[in-house]
């Protein structure tokens, strides 16, 4: 069995035709993890028996002659900020090192019903705060294409697991690019759906007005298949909406002639490296060859996006992380004094440097006397950024940009300079501020062989158009699995 070429559809076919059992497929990936993961370090923890039980369930269905669900036997890595009942969920943090999830996230319930097999929990920057996965309290993950380079972040474990073929697909979460940027760095496809498309019940909250769950995989077809399963209204998440879930995969393969593709003028000035620029220009040419119209558009408030994003994300994080106090779950350092000492000492021992920095800044911008100057101001600029996109989408169907201004950087290169790490998110964060869907897909390699990703952004609930264009692009460019 060639693990590298497997997709959800092929796996289901193998099981259905009796050419392989779900257990055999699961074991093959577990062997691959045992071989590769000591170097890549994509997984924080896994439970092989737990995964095999899920695979056995699929094989029993097959033996009983029941119809196989759409993702039957699909081996997946799950980012370790999503709850799977009975397994630990650490968020890459010491403070949750021993936390055992008492329930399933809605996305996990839905994937389990669709037959997916959860191989293990993938590494992340602590609480998804970072762009390199170096902020994990437990281990840095390495880029499957070069051990000296980061896999991106914060869903770096999910992207590296898929990139190294230790899983066929994965779930990540995206607050400012945390699915798309690591997908780009690891040479895989990753999608952030529209805000409110996918239920976040059972996702450990970071920035509640920004967070979204989405899939990573090798091809657009698998992204479409997984997205269909996890999308839709969930009574347990009031921000999820009752908008019809189309058959995303069914819409793939149609011509994209006449599609209007916007190229934001401002993005050309934003410090894009020469190697990335070359690949993206070739990508745009490909869209033109497919019959798309390339149209220059303006997003005049682009320069303000990073400042806006970090004020809002840090403010929301400082509120969300107030719940870690050593009382109901997580690390407790009893301390010598009263309740307040216990809070402080538990949080001090449990949180890493980046998380503390963001809690401090978030608390500052929400504090009395500074709220209007920072937090309210950022929310107003968020409105201006939203209007930029609304105006652009009057003229075009999609926006195209690099996913990241540079190819993967080296481990340690940006760890001492938080601001330079934040600046690498310039192309991805606006989708979270505006709430629109975005996908990153492979767009060739640098001369050194490192992957470069291209990003497509669509309108609210415009996933079908984004996926259709991405699929046509990967087929025509020879990037399909």
């Amino acid at each position, binding site marked *: 069995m060639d693990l590298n070429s497997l997709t959800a559809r092929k796996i289901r076919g193998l099981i259905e035709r009796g050419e392989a059992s779900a257990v055999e497929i699961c074991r093959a990936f577990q062997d691959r993890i045992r071989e590769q993961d000591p170097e890549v370090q994509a997984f924080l923890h896994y439970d092989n028996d737990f995964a095999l039980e899920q695979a056995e369930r699929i094989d029993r269905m097959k033996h009983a002659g029941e119809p196989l669900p759409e993702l039957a036997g699909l081996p997946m890595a799950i980012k370790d900020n999503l709850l799977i009942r009975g397994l630990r969920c650490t968020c890459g943090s010491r403070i949750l090192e021993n936390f055992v999830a*008492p329930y399933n996230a809605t996305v996990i319930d839905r994937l389990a019903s669709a037959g997916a097999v959860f191989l293990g929990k993938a590494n992340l920057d602590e609480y998804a705060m970072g762009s390199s996965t170096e902020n994990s309290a437990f281990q840095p993950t390495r880029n499957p294409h070069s051990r000296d380079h980061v896999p991106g972040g914060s869903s770096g474990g999910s992207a590296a697991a898929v990139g190294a073929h230790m899983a066929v697909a994965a779930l990540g979460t995206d607050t400012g690019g945390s699915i798309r940027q690591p997908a780009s760095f690891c040479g895989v496809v990753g999608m952030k759906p529209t805000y409110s498309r996918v239920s976040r019940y059972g996702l450990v909250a970071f920035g509640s007005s920004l967070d979204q769950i989405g899939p990573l995989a090798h091809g657009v077809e698998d992204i479409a298949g997984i997205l269909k399963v996890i999308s839709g209204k969930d009574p347990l998440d009031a921000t999820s909406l009752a908008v019809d879930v189309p058959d995303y995969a069914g819409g793939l393969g149609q011509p994209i002639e006449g599609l209007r593709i916007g190229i934001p003028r401002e993005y050309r000035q934003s410090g894009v490296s020469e190697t990335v620029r070359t690949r993206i220009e070739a990508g745009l040419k490909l869209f033109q060859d497919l019959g798309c119209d390339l149209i220059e558009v303006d997003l005049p408030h682009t320069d303000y996006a990073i400042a806006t994003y970090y004020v809002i994300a840090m403010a929301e994080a400082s509120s969300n992380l*107030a719940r870690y106090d050593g009382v*109901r779950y997580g690390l407790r350092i009893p301390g010598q004094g009263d*309740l307040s000492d216990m809070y402080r000492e538990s949080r001090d021992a449990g949180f890493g440097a980046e998380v503390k920095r963001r809690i401090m800044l978030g*608390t500052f911008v929400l504090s009395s006397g500074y709220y209007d100057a920072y937090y309210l101001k950022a929310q107003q600029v968020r409105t201006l950024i939203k209007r930029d996109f609304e105006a652009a989408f009057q003229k075009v169907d999609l926006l195209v940009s690099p996913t990241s201004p540079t190819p993967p950087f080296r481990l340690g290169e940006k760890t001492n300079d938080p601001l330079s790490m934040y600046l690498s998110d310039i192309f991805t964060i606006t989708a979270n501020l505006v709430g629109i869907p975005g996908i990153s897909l492979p767009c060739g390699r640098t001369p050194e062989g490192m992957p470069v990703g291209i990003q497509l952004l669509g309108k609210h*609930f415009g996933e079908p158009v984004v996926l259709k264009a991405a699929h046509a692009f990967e087929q025509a460019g020879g990037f399909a699995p």
Partner: protein
Amino acid sequence: MKIDGARVDYIANLAQLAVTEEERRELIGQMNSILDYVEQLNRLDTSGIEPTTQVVHTTEQNYSWRADQPRSGFSQEQSLGNGPATGSGHFKVPKVISEK
């Protein structure tokens, strides 16, 4: 400089974080450089602009209404399952009222 040592201590107190001398020094530098960067937002005139607090794309058809009916939640056992110190069906904590 917006952030000095005293401000770091004040914020740390609000956020219930302990800060060592070394962390304080580092935070002063990093918080100031990040806030200096954020200052660029002041170049924009935002008077009269509505703040965006959330981006749920609602229409009349998809508002998140549901019937107000009770449903069961977690059992006491489940709720206490991750508690670092529990007893008699409760979470245990150190003294709340200090003698200081």
